[in-house]
């Protein structure tokens, strides 16, 4: 068996504050951001295929509440193929589908730029003295968390239970390089000065359908947004929102390889299961020295770092025997493996070596500098302020951006690539078809979803174009088609049968 291409995307809920208002309403603030950004007519979202309550384990939910679909709220699809909308009381940005980790770093960074532009635009809509500010983090420090979810295309034929077994120790341990760092603890977790992850305190179950209550480490939402006979979409809710490009690159790149390895089967030659993964997740996050050990089901104890070395060993064996074609290609896959090894090595010697690459280390070093200069205790509010403002998305206020400008943070992509991705879709997936239709015929796109577009071709009825195959509709597939047509009607005519984008 050969793993399906690891098409992936990241959805980020941003923290939002409306400053200077007597009665700040976060839903209104979020709407203003999106309306401010979207200057063309807003494109409605087609909810026909949305089924967030469906469960990957194959049975109906037992009392679990599926997330609400808030059709009445602001919802935009952008020319870069992304979705930008109000979810609960947050502005949420879902990147377009990307086919490798570096492409997704660009798309995720473009989301930050879009939020920054939105804040500027919203300022013009607000009374004097009011301002909307957004943060790319996952917690308000008071027990309220909002997510940064990853999505990966996975082969439907792989039994979900086979994924879960290895994904639990994977998610418990990968936080040592993809955690975004946090001052203190929340949600009843034990006291700690500084921990590795923003999110670890909020996970209470091993496996389940919830995302807002009793959050599970492995989420079972089964809503593929693609051909359900062929694919799953693994919905990963356990991650932190990252600012460091290296952290995002590793988070996505390593997880894609691990998933491909599990799909192909037969590579996991020992049981990596952890006893009590929920408690283990907190224990790992609460120990920035990386010395905390977890208990293995097979017996014995080991550190998160030691388990990560095991995962890397398996991934290398997988790469040597099966190749990494489905993980963004051989070259990029090897780049992930090399960086993964370098980062684990750095963490083993002293995490401080990863300042400028990993968020939790970069922020920790900034806080340490303040602790030592100002002689601060870890419960000093100034440290919590620094923590929060590291994630401020305004370029002139973001402490992360200050570090970038000072040359303290490694960038993996150019700003020119990021700015291009604000407007243009990735070329390698169906996002290209979606984004190009919106760029050319915004007025004719009546509704859009991940797996369909509805076009008004000027005569009844409206035409629905399914896009059930995420790898199709790429620039390679449809560039000539777009060159040959000038109207959406011609486009529909040219699609041999408008059931599938070719």
């Amino acid at each position, binding site marked *: 068996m050969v793993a399906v291409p690891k098409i992936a995307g990241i959805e980020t*809920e941003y923290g939002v504050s409306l400053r200077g208002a007597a009665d700040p309403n976060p839903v209104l603030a979020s709407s203003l951001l999106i309306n401010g950004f979207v200057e063309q007519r807003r494109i409605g979202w087609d909810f026909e295929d949305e089924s967030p309550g469906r469960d990957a384990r194959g049975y109906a939910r037992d009392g679990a509440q599926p997330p609400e679909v808030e059709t009445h709220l602001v919802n935009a699809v952008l020319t870069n193929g992304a979705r930008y909308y109000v979810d*609960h009381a947050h502005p949420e940005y879902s990147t377009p589908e990307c086919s490798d980790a570096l492409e997704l770093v660009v798309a995720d960074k473009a989301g930050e730029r879009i939020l920054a532009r939105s804040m500027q635009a919203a300022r013009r809509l607000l009374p004097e003295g009011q301002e909307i500010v957004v943060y790319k983090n996952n917690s308000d420090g008071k027990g309220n968390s909002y997510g940064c979810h990853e999505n990966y295309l996975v082969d439907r034929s792989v039994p979900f239970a086979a994924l879960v077994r290895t994904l639990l120790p994977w998610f418990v341990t990968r936080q040592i390089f993809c955690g975004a760092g946090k001052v203190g603890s929340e949600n009843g977790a034990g006291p700690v000065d500084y921990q590795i992850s923003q999110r670890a305190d909020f996970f209470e179950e091993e496996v389940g359908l919830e995302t807002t209550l009793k959050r599970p480490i492995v989420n079972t939402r089964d809503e593929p947004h693609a051909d359900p006979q062929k694919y799953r979409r693994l919905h990963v809710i356990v991650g932190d929102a990252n600012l460091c490009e290296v952290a995002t690159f590793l988070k996505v790149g390593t997880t894609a390889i691990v998933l491909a390895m599990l799909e192909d089967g037969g590579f996991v030659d020992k049981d990596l299961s952890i006893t009590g993964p929920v408690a283990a997740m907190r224990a790992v996050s609460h120990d920035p020295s990386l010395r905390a050990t977890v208990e293995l089901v097979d017996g014995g104890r080991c550190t998160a770092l030691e388990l990560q070395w095991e995962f890397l060993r398996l991934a290398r064996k997988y790469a040597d025997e099966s190749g990494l074609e489905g993980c963004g290609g051989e070259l990029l896959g090897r780049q992930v493996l090399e960086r993964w090894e370098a980062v684990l090595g750095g963490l083993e010697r002293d995490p401080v070596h990863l300042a400028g690459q990993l968020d939790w280390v970069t922020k920790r070093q900034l806080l340490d500098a303040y602790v030592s200069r100002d002689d601060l205790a870890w419960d000093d509010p100034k440290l919590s*302020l620094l923590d929060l403002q590291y994630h401020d998305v305004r370029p002139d206020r973001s402490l992360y951006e200050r570090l970038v400008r000072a040359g303290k943070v490694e960038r993996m992509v150019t700003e020119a690539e990021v700015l291009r991705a604000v407007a243009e879709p990735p070329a390698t997936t169906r996002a290209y078809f979606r984004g190009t239709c919106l760029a050319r015929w915004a007025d004719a796109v009546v509704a859009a979803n991940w797996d369909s577009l509805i076009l008004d071709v000027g005569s009844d009825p409206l035409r629905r174009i399914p896009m059930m195959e995420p790898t199709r509709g790429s620039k390679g597939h449809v560039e000539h088609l777009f060159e040959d047509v000038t109207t959406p009607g011609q486009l529909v005519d040219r699609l041999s049968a408008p059931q599938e984008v070719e």
Partner: protein
Amino acid sequence: MAERERKQKPAPREREGEAAEVAAPAKAGEALKEDLDDLLDEIDSVLEENAEEFVRSYVQKGGE
């Protein structure tokens, strides 16, 4: 793509060998620590005022 940024791309550097892999991040980490104090003054000037009140008033609704 700017030359400076091209140099920061990880793949070619890391393929040069183990020594380069080990040295690069270590150097970056130490350099950051040394220079950070100079940055603090600059960061002081953009920090929100009244940390305690500011942190207290940052309250979000849960999401997802």
